[in-house]
């Protein structure tokens, strides 16, 4: 499956076989404003669903990104160290945070697809 799924906390997740890639949505980056620092977990760390997958610092506040699925961190986006603003400029592409090896890839089927997420965003704004 190569389709993004979305959480009510404005994370997106994309799974290819047992590898998940995680980021935040366009709506979330817009709400946070300029991202100036991204704190990422260590490679090898085991995360459960709901754990902190990253911390984003904007000019005025910090926000936690929650892991939508459990797994082992196999890669983090080191590029964000040099230029955290790619989270603002390309949230679905170069602005990803972590890649996870997941044990239960089917569990993301419960998450929203793009259509559902868009109407969810409309309902909260």
């Amino acid at each position, binding site marked *: 499956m190569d389709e993004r799924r979305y959480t009510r*906390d*404005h*994370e997106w997740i994309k799974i290819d076989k047992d590898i998940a890639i995680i980021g*935040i949505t366009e*709506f*979330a980056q817009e*709400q*946070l*404003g*300029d991202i*100036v*620092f991204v*704190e990422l977990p260590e490679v090898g760390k085991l995360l459960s669903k709901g754990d902190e997958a990253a*911390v*984003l*610092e*904007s*000019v*005025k*506040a*910090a*926000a*936690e*990104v*929650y892991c939508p699925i459990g797994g082992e961190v196999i890669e983090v986006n080191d590029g964000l160290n040099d230029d955290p603003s790619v989270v*603002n400029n390309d949230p679905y592409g170069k602005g990803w945070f972590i890649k996870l090896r997941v044990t239960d890839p089917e569990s993301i089927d419960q998450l929203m697809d793009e259509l559902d997420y868009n109407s969810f965003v409309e309902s*909260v*704004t």
Partner: protein
Amino acid sequence: MVLDSRSNTTSLKKTPLNALHKEYGARMVEFSGFEMPLQYRNGIIKEHEHTRLAAGLFDVSHMGQGFLTGNDPGVAIEKLVPSDIMGLSSGNVCYTLLLNDDGGIIDDLLVSNLTVSKLGPVIYVVLNAVNAQAKFCYISEKLKNLVEVKPASDRALVALQGPMSEMVISRYFPAASELVFMQAKGMTYQGVEYFVSRSGYTGEDGFEISLPEHCAEHFVRCLVNEPEVELIGLGARDTLRLEAGLCLYGNDIDESTTPIESGLNWTVSKRRRQSRNFPGANLILEQIEEGVAKLRVGLLPQGRVSLRPGSSLFDKGGNNIGVVTSGCYSPTLKQPVAMGYLLKKYSEIGTTIYSEIRGRDLEIEVAKLPFVNTNYYRGK
């Protein structure tokens, strides 16, 4: 992540520029009971940089403007503030503090000695937006029979800040170029009386312009169409003032801090120190003589993690020695900056102290304020 995106703004007060902010893509937020622009499409960092390099235009109409009239309003208001207002000659502006009887700060304000067409010589004051009406009532009550307080709720207030401000404002008010920092004057534009003051809250040269609210939208559209000018939101207003080491009322100063603890000793004038006739004088003069237990300081977090208001500060042994009152990312320095209060013995510049953020120790250096040099125009 948890986003607070549902903003219930229906019950909020609006400035005369509300529709214009939305037209320019502002993200509106609640601030002091008003619906105000946090940022426009460019975002906080670009808005901040634009103000430092060119000219930024801020809507500050939420602030409380008013006139004190009477026999000698400058003498009267000295009962409530520690500065030399009697000695403030016509056309001059003074930053001062409304004090309670314990020397705590009820508000910080700008006081100008101005001549207004329909009122004659007045003391014009600009208070913070929070409880502005209540504070005008307080002033009125305390100075009963001495002054009449006339809140100017039909006036808007905008600030034009940055090195190109003078070039822009002089196209509308040629006489504005003759003002130096902390001077103000009534000026006419298209037959209407404006008050133009060379002052601001960014550390840059700039002007604050009071005008009738029905003129606000037209005037702001003219300024926005000037090539040097961009609209700037409250987000960048906060990062600019923090870089300039300026206090935000409610964060860095309040009724639990005195002018001496907050490093605003200069607001207590020499003459008033001798006459000892302002609220909290005994305590404040004792603090000047004997020193204070806590002091406002600049804080430079080491690394990239920002300090946020409310975080506790510790010494090496883990003892609580202070608290952060303001903190943000500095777009100019490209690193986090903060202000807070520290026990006096830790307040020396260069001292290493600590905080804890997300379960980890954060090393902090006590730093000199301002973080970015100010650029006020004090004359040639």
